């Protein structure tokens, strides 16, 4: 068992136990367990191809794990077994939201519309599953105004208010990343999963992202699980780091603990920055071959 570094409290929002995922002959995840604490930012790191996104896809229901249990406990105490739920139910009922490594926005819809689509389920209920809303009932109008307010709130947080009426596909890369996070927040999640939110950002955009993420945690208390390569982001904002290599956990603890863990240094951090890139690329190639 990994040492539980954060002894202040033990109120896990997400518990992953003995998770395994097999693609044909490839064991992408092998008996992986970890916990994410409520209100914390948990980072999942590891060399490219270590299986981080696969863990994500299992947690958010896009993959059905070969084995293992993923349970999520809401603030209210209600527990959901995520591996048994369909992907959309995980967002709708368990209130887990996610973003994607290669941004998936509705490029032809405006920024605002992207945020309104995220409030689909709330608005559906308010519109009496469309039938009542069709007649323009005041209840729906009120709900719609509220949804625009919520969108406006997140647009401000993500510094996108000026671009609200532009097509999402027209935004620069960094803004698209922030929009995707804002869109996920519009589903009002208790648990937010971010897949490499800082990838491809320049330092200025990276800073804006950090502000957004810490703001989210501070103001909404949303727990965050993030996959990240950018060590500055990981070390700066996360409370708890889990390190994955070849589908297995090699370290688990506070950023300081992980930074000094010899296994992690050997696998990942000990190598010079330029070399990290090389190593990552090599591993990627091996992984790609493994998949085919």
């Amino acid at each position: 068992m990994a040492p539980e570094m954060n002894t202040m409290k033990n109120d896990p929002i997400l518990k992953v136990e003995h998770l395994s995922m097999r693609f044909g002959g490839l064991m992408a995840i092998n008996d992986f367990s970890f916990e994410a604490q409520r209100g914390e930012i948990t980072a999942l790191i590891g060399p490219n191809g270590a299986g981080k996104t696969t863990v994500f896809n299992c947690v958010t229901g896009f993959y059905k794990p070969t084995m293992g249990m993923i349970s999520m406990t809401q603030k209210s105490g209600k527990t959901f077994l995520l591996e048994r739920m369909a992907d959309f139910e995980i967002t709708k009922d368990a209130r887990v939201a996610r973003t994607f490594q290669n941004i998936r926005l509705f490029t032809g819809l405006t920024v605002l519309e992207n945020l309104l689509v995220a409030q689909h389920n709330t608005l559906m209920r308010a519109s009496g599953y469309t039938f009542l809303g069709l007649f323009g009932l005041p209840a729906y109008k009120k709900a719609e105004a509220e949804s625009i307010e919520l969108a406006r709130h997140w647009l401000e947080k993500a510094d996108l208010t000026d671009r609200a009426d532009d097509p999402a596909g027209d935004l620069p890369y960094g803004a698209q990343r922030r929009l995707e996070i804002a869109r996920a927040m519009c589903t009002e999640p208790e648990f937010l999963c971010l897949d490499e939110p800082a990838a491809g950002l320049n330092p200025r955009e990276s800073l804006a992202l950090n502000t957004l993420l810490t703001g989210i945690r501070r103001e909404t208390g949303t727990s965050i699980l993030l996959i990240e390569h950018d060590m500055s982001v990981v070390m700066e904002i996360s409370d708890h780091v889990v390190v994955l290599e070849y589908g297995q956990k090699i370290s688990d603890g506070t950023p300081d603990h992980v930074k000094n863990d010899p296994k992690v240094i050997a696998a990942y951090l000990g190598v010079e920055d330029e070399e990290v890139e090389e190593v990552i690329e090599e591993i990627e190639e091996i992984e790609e071959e493994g998949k085919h």
Partner: protein
Amino acid sequence: MEYFIQQLVNGLTLGSIYGLIAIGYTMVYGIIGMINFAHGDIFMLGGFAALIIFLVLTSVFVGLPTVLLLLLMMAAAMLTAALWNWTIEKVAYRPLRGSFRLAPLITAIGMSITLSNFVQVTQGPRNKPIPPLVSSVYNVFGISISLKQIVIVVLTTVLLTVFWYVVNKTALGRAQRATEQDRKMAALLGIDVDRTISITFIMGAGLAAVAGTMYLMYYGVVVFTDGFIPGVKAFTAAVLGGIGSLPGAVIGGLLIGLIESLWSAYFTIDYKDVATFSILAIVLIFKPSGIFGRPEVEKV
């Protein structure tokens, strides 16, 4: 039992024709990812070309040997159909390559309407019957096999062998497969993508024209609407076999042919097309990638 085998033979013949057309669909789909809706009409055009050449030859050279006659019909049909398909690709599909996905589909449907109506306008709307070309029938263990069935099955086998060789063993086939996998990369590696795609259309049309000639010989009649139903069935065959897969297209064609003749023999002929389409729907619902298609993994 004999009745069953008889139906198998009939189904095999029909399936060979579908298979030949299906290859054109599957190759074009494989290489540029579009349903070439006009392909069925290229098949019909091939049948008409064969018909016209047949009339020319029989009126100019009386008593031409049937083998020579058939070969000349086939050659003329292949040339004409190939030229049509080449022109259509160049004029109607190439400008839309890489654009909006539905645009080429609509263009292809428009081309299909154009072609069948072009033939209707220029050749008239009536059925065009010809006297039987090959009429011998052999009796093998109580099963009657006509010479034309043998010709169709043998010719299909020969063509497929040649075709298989071209696609798998020649530089042209390599270029085709490379273009299919990654068009940009193929172009970077010095493959003339436009030319490769043109040749694919020409090859597909050639096979469809042979199918058209066989169809004319087998049924002894062709009409301008003949592109649609065989076209849809051949496309069904291509999907059934797994679109993009050449052996899949042939197997799919044979399956459709067999289903059709067995259904007509044992159930009701009225619902034979319903049976074909239902099987298509069922296969797609349970195995969307077809028999030989690689299952698509959803990338998140």
